[in-house]
């Protein structure tokens, strides 16, 4: 259990670092896919099986396909895929990120939260659906409105002529 967690965590970080320095946009999309699938495996190790499969179907399936389609319709020059030009931004980005990680980890360490690994079985999906349709019913409906707005907005923005 422990070893597999470290393996998938290392895979996720490796995919993220590959995404950072990948020149080819399709390779970048595949690195992101590696991160998403490793995260799904970690969800399984934590016992959140439903979320793991939703992650694979929605993120790794639907959203990544959207990205790959966008990559195929937009022709990209080699120069667009380099790092940013401004030298100050180049110099400061990595220290800023490392300081952010260090801050977050020191705050997390001070709370000393212990995450339990699932030893067997999955979460109670009944309880989860009761929560969605009872306590979070209003938010659930608002999410459906948001998705509708997203569909209409995406079509309106990308359409050539109305």
């Amino acid at each position: 259990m422990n070893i597999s967690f470290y393996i998938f965590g290392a895979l996720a970080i490796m995919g993220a670092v590959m995404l950072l320095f990948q020149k080819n946009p399709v390779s970048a999309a595949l690195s992101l896919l590696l991160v998403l699938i490793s995260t799904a495996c970690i969800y399984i190790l934590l016992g959140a099986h439903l979320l793991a499969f939703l992650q694979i179907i929605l993120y790794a399936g639907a959203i990544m396909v959207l990205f790959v389609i966008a990559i195929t319709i937009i022709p990209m020059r080699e120069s667009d895929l380099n790092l940013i030009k401004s030298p100050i931004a180049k110099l400061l980005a990595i220290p800023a990120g490392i300081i952010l990680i260090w801050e977050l980890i020191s705050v997390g360490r001070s709370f000393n939260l212990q995450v339990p690994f699932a030893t067997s079985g999955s979460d109670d999906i009944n309880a989860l659906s009761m929560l969605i349709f009872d306590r979070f019913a209003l938010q659930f409906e608002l999410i459906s409105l948001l998705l509708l707005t997203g569909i209409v907005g995406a079509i309106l923005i990308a359409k050539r002529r109305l």
Partner: protein
Amino acid sequence: MLTQVPLFLSFVLFGIGVIGFLLRRNIIILLMFIELMLNAANLAFVSLSKTIGDMSGQVYVMFIFAIAAAEAGVGLAIAILIYRQLKTTDVDKINNLRG
């Protein structure tokens, strides 16, 4: 078995997402880093929901899935529109507002 490592993993992924967002200049790659940061937030939600034994964290993760899908759809539509108008995907060259 108890450990603190899943939270730290989510922090590291979020930090790498921030670094990439500041460092890259292709608009589609920037959207990918936004997805990476949302994914890290999801991992933190799941680990904390497991820690305190409350399922509502997992409901929030489902909401974040929906929001990420909407965001990716609209964001990529904007990227396509920008390419059609300006013939570029480089965020350094998109400076019509003289920013």
